[in-house]
C-alpha cells in the first residue's frame, strides 16, 4: 500500500511538470493524433497480495498509424488499453494524448470500442451512436446528423432504427465503432472488438475496419490475441510478455497496403507471424 501512495504522488508531480512544460496549445501540427506513454508501471492488490501487472511500458504512436498490442492472456494488454482510455489510473507513469496528459475519459480525444460492443439494449442504433453527443448536450438536430454520418461510414444507415438485439454480432460491433467515431476523436482504442465474432465475420470486419480507418484518418490502437489479425491490420505490432507485461518488441509490419487476404499466404506474413509467436512463447 505505501507503494501505491508513493506512485500516486509521483503521478501528480509528473502531471504538474508536464502541464507547465507542454501547455494545452501545443504547437505541433498533428499533435492531436499522437499518443505518448512513458514509464508506466501498474500494480494492484487483492486481499493484501500485490501483483505487478505492467512493467516499464513506454511507447508512442504517431498520427494516423494503426498499431496492435498482442501478448499472452493475462499480460495486461486490456488493462493497458483501459489506461489509455482514462478508465483506469496506472500506479505510475504518464499518458499523454496530443501533448496533454490524459487522466480521465475524454471522448473528444480518445474513443473506445469494447469487446462485446456494449451497446445500450434499450436504444436504437442511431440513439446509441448519438449517446456520447447527448451526454455533452449537443443539440438534437446536430446529434442526429452526426450519428447518421457515422452510421453511413460503417455502412449501417439502413439499420439506424433497429435495436441492438435485432442486429448480428458484426453489425453491433460496427454500431459500436460508429459510436466511437461520432465525436471525431483522433484516437480510437479497440479492445479485442472482434473476439466474439465467428472467423468469417471477423475477417470481413477486419477489411471493413481498414476501409473505415483509411477514410476517417484515425490513429488506431487495437488489442487482440489473434496474431494473424494483428499482422493483417497493423502498421506495427507491440508484443507484450506474460505477467508482468513488458514490451518485448515493436514489430514493424512492412506488408504493402491496401492489404488483401492472399497476403496471409505469403512467406513474409508467415515469417512475421512466426517471429511474434516465438517472442510470446519464450
Amino acid at each position, binding site marked *: 500500500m505505501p507503494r501505491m501512495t508513493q506512485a500516486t504522488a509521483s503521478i501528480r508531480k509528473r502531471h504538474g511538470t508536464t502541464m507547465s512544460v507542454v501547455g494545452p496549445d501545443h504547437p505541433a501540427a498533428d499533435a492531436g493524433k499522437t499518443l505518448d506513454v512513458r514509464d508506466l508501471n501498474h500494480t494492484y492488490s487483492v486481499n493484501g497480495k500485490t501483483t505487478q501487472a505492467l512493467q516499464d511500458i513506454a511507447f508512442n504512436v504517431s498520427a494516423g498509424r494503426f498499431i496492435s498490442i498482442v501478448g499472452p492472456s493475462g499480460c495486461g494488454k486490456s488493462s493497458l488499453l483501459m489506461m489509455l482510455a482514462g478508465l483506469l489510473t496506472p500506479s505510475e507513469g504518464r499518458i499523454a494524448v496530443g501533448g496533454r496528459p490524459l487522466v480521465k475519459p475524454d471522448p473528444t480525444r480518445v474513443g*473506445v470500442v469494447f469487446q462485446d460492443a456494449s451497446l445500450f439494449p434499450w436504444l436504437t442504433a442511431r440513439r446509441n451512436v448519438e449517446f456520447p453527443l447527448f451526454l455533452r448536450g449537443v443539440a438534437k438536430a446536430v446529434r442526429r446528423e452526426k450519428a447518421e454520418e457515422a452510421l453511413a461510414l460503417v455502412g449501417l444507415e439502413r*439499420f439506424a432504427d433497429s435495436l441492438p438485439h*435485432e442486429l448480428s454480432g458484426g453489425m453491433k460491433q460496427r454500431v459500436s465503432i460508429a459510436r466511437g467515431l461520432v465525436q471525431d476523436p483522433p484516437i480510437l482504442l479497440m479492445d479485442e472488438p472482434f473476439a466474439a465474432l465467428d472467423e468469417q465475420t471477423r475477417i470481413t470486419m477486419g477489411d471493413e475496419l481498414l476501409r473505415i480507418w483509411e477514410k476517417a484518418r484515425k490513429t488506431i490502437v487495437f488489442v487482440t490475441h489473434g496474431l494473424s489479425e494483428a499482422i493483417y491490420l497493423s502498421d506495427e505490432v507491440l508484443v507484450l510478455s506474460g505477467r508482468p507485461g513488458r514490451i518485448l518488441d515493436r514489430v514493424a509490419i512492412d506488408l504493402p497496403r491496401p492489404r488483401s487476404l492472399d497476403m496471409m499466404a505469403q512467406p513474409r506474413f508467415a515469417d512475421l507471424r512466426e517471429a511474434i509467436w516465438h517472442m510470446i512463447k519464450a
Partner: protein
Amino acid sequence: MAYDQSVTHVPRGSGASVGISLETKARICRYAIIAAVIVAWEIVPQLGLVPRLFLPSLSSTLAMLMAHSGDFAVQMLVTLQEVGMALVFACGFGILFGLWVGSTLTVRKALLPVVSALFAVPLVVLYPLFTAWFGIGSASKVVFASVYGLLPTVLGTAAGAQTIDRQLTQAARSMGATRLQQILWVTLPASVPTVLASFRLGGALVIVGVVVAEMMMSSAGIGFLLSKYRTQLNSSGVFAAIILILALAIGFDLAVQAIERRWTGGVRNKAARRPADAP
C-alpha cells in the same frame, strides 16, 4: 458485409395453436374461480349457512355501498390523496436512492445492511410516534406509509442496480458520462424490470400503510370508515370498505402491470418490425 446483414432473427407468430391454448384455459379457469367466489358470497349468507354479522351477502354490501356512496367517495378521496403523496415520496425517492446505493460500491457496503435491518423492524409499532409528531390528520399517514413503502423499494432497486451489466456503465464512462448521467441514463433504464417490480411491491405496502394507519388513529379516510363501521357492528359497511380497498390495491397493480407491458411490449414490437429493405 452482405453476409452478416442476413442474420437478423425475427420471431414468428406465437407458435402453432392446436385446440385451446394453455393461456386460454388458464384464463377460463381464472374467471371461473372469481365467478364462484362472487356466487358463493351471495348464496352462502342467503342460505343462512353463515351468520350475516360475519358475512353479509354481496347484494346487501353493494346496497350499503350505494346508499352511502357520497360518504364512501369522500373518504376514498382522502385515502387516494394520501396514497398518491406517499407513493411519490416512497417510490420516487426510494428508486433514486436505491439506484445510487446499488451502483456505488462504498455506499452499498455502508448503507445496505442498515436498510436491510430496518426492513425487519415492524414499523407499525412506530405509528403512535408518528401521530404524536404529525397529528392524526393526513400528514402522519403520508409519512408513515412513505417510510413503510420506502425500504422495500430501496432494497429492490439497489439489488437491480447492482446486477446490471458493468460493461454498460464503463462504456458510458468512456464517453465522459458524469456519475449522475450514468445513474439516470444507464443504470435506471438497464434496471427497469427490477425498478418496476420494487415499485409494485413498495406501492402495495404504501396502500397497506395508509389504510392501517387510518384504521388505527385518524379522523378520515377509507380505513377510518372501516374502523367506524366495525365498532358499530355494521358488517355490510365493513365489507363495502373492504371492497373499495381491494379495488384500490388491484387498480394500482394493474396500472404497474400496464407500465411493465408497455416497456417490454415496446421492445417486442420493435423486434417484430423488420427493417423494410432487410433481406
